[in-house]
């Protein structure tokens, strides 16, 4: 059971939100959708949930021999970007109502509500009005709403936003538990460190297009650079000197004294170091293994630059 997205295109008025997007989500994995604001993640999520349909291309998910053009509501758990429940109602009423709407009987719904509230240290707020909870706790209740009916497919749009680091870690544990329960999680987020910990595979989007796609290793290969060397010189360095030594390497020259080099897996640090020392006297040198955050920034910058050319 895989979710297949093939050559999907979507426009709103004169804006093309999604351009020829192709990827697949495997059952039981945590799949991350990454990209800056306006990259088209929410448009994509809305098509996956069936709120909107692609203008061209197709989305397909086969369940029990039946092919669906989006994730069917009876197997979907969803945390929308636009959060909201019934603030006047109690936590219990909110959770049991949504569970019942998804086909869970009241007793099981209550049992599940208590289970997940306990996991988030919120069990004592079961009978409290939702509006009396802090914003972060309301967010946790909304997360529980998305999974209380134990769906097979879960889409979480920005599950970490509005949470402090401690609660972000709780959400990481929560998502790992969902995976352990056999749920497939599609996650849209900006917190790269969290995504790096969790995601089996990911899709990095920019301006509605695929920039990077695959697992972390695949992405590192696609980016090419895995290590960044940051060197600070005593004197000024000219762009011509740099170009002469590093014509095959990505670099950034800041304030005429600081150089950042993105090294590929094939390039040795020693080789780069000898070239750097030939340019002048080094006063500082840092070697950084590029994390997802760095890969993301580099890839988006590169994609943006290509688009502007």
């Amino acid at each position: 059971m895989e979710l297949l997205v093939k050559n999907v295109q979507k426009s709103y008025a004169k804006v093309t939100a999604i351009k020829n997007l192709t990827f697949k989500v495997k059952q039981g994995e945590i799949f991350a959708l990454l990209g800056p604001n306006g990259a088209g993640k929410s448009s994509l999520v809305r098509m996956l949930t069936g709120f909107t349909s692609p203008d061209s291309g197709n989305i397909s998910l086969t369940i029990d021999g039946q092919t669906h053009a989006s994730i069917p509501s009876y197997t979907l758990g969803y945390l929308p970007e636009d959060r909201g429940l019934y603030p006047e109602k109690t936590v219990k009423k909110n959770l049991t109502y949504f569970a019942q709407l998804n086909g869970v009987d009241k007793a099981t719904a209550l049992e599940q509500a208590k289970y997940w509230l306990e996991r988030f240290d919120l069990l004592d707020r079961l009978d409290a009005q939702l509006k009396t909870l802090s914003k972060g706790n309301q967010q946790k209740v909304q997360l529980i709403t998305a999974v209380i009916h134990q769906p097979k497919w879960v889409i979480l749009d920005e599950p970490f936003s509005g949470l402090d680091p401690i609660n972000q870690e709780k959400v990481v544990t929560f998502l790992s538990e969902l995976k352990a329960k056999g749920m497939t999680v599609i996650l849209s987020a900006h917190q790269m460190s969290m995504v790096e910990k969790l995601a089996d595979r990911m899709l990095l989007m920019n301006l509605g297009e695929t920039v990077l796609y695959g697992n972390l290793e695949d992405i590192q290969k696609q980016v090419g650079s895995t290590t960044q060397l940051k060197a600070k010189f005593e004197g000024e360095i000219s762009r011509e000197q740099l170009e002469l030594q590093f014509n095959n390497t990505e670099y950034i020259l800041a304030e005429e004294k600081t150089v950042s080099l993105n090294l590929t897996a094939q390039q040795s640090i020693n080789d780069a170091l000898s070239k750097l020392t030939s340019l002048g006297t080094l006063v500082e040198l840092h070697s950084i293994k590029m994390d997802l955050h760095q890969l993301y920034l580099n890839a988006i910058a590169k994609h943006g630059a290509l688009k502007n050319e």
Partner: protein
Amino acid sequence: MNKMTRKQQVWLVTSWEFMHFFKWKQEIISKLILISIALVVMLWQQIKDDQLTLYKVAVPANTTQFKDSGQFKFSLSNKSFEVLKLELAEEGRWDAVLSETPATNSIKKITIYSKDKQSWLNDLTLTLNQQSTLQYASSLGLAQEQLTLLNQSASFENKYLDDNIKSENSPGRTTAITMLVILSVGIFTSFGQLFVSITGEKQQRVTEQLYACMSPQTWIDGKIFGQMLHSFKAMITMMITGLLAYAFTTIVVSNKMLNLSIIDWSLLPWLLPFAIVGVYLCTAFMAAIAAAIDDPNHSAKTSIMLLPLLPMLLALITMDSPSGWALSFLSYFPLTAFAAMPVKMSVIDVPLWQPLLSLLLTAILCFWVRTSAGNLFKMGMSMYGKEPSLKDMVMWMLHKN
């Protein structure tokens, strides 16, 4: 997790919607007030029945004599007026004492003395007046029939060549007007609440979460049914309150027997289906409007909300010309039929096919408005907070997405 059927989801949303606006405390208080009024009416009736033979009226010897009548017993007394007045004030032996002033300009003046103001004094005055008139007619040598003729020399009645028009005395007119008033209460109850409910949920951003569980049509259907239940609750409460108010004014204030012949019982079975389609149509219409409103504080579309008042007003205005083209047209026109046809039926006898056709046309419109509301909501979701133009709305209602 079981796959939830559409019917189950609609019922769940219906009950959620109903209970969302159902306040137990408020309901208990209002129903207790109604029960209290009903008890007062019943007790008053009982007290009144018990008191029927208690009114004893003392008539001094020098005063015109009256015959016992109904609840009044007139007793001739040889005691002076002053003594009788004392007995009235201190001993409670009498309920009233009469005193007659010598006639001036041939009109005698009878004064009724009582301890305090009582509602039965009006009836006593009426009885005394009737007996005085008869006594005077007798003194003139007039018979009872002559006196009746003198009071009313001719009677007038309207007759129409169109045999279908009911008589002026038919209770249908009162029933129809009452129905329109009650229907207005029901419609505006659901109208207001549904507007608050839909725009409220949109503002609380709960709609996208709901949309993930069910189709927009299921959600809209549940909302319409939930608010319809509120409408009927309001209409039933209004009916009971109206009946109690009528009973109160009749029994307690006017001291009369309750007269339920003001209700046209033959019209009642027709009023229910027309009330159902009428409330459904207006509630679905409201759902369609609210589904297209993103921010109720800054929307120009809220002015459309007064539209459901029109069918009721038009039906009332055209009521006096039941055979005219206006009421005939309105009674079939699906937007007004739910109000106009019962009004027409109250003043004119119509063949069976007419209300049935009227109901059918309204039901078809109801179905279209309800699916349009679902479509409007679905399309509104893709507007990302922008409000659709009237042109967009018309296109969506025509299902040209």
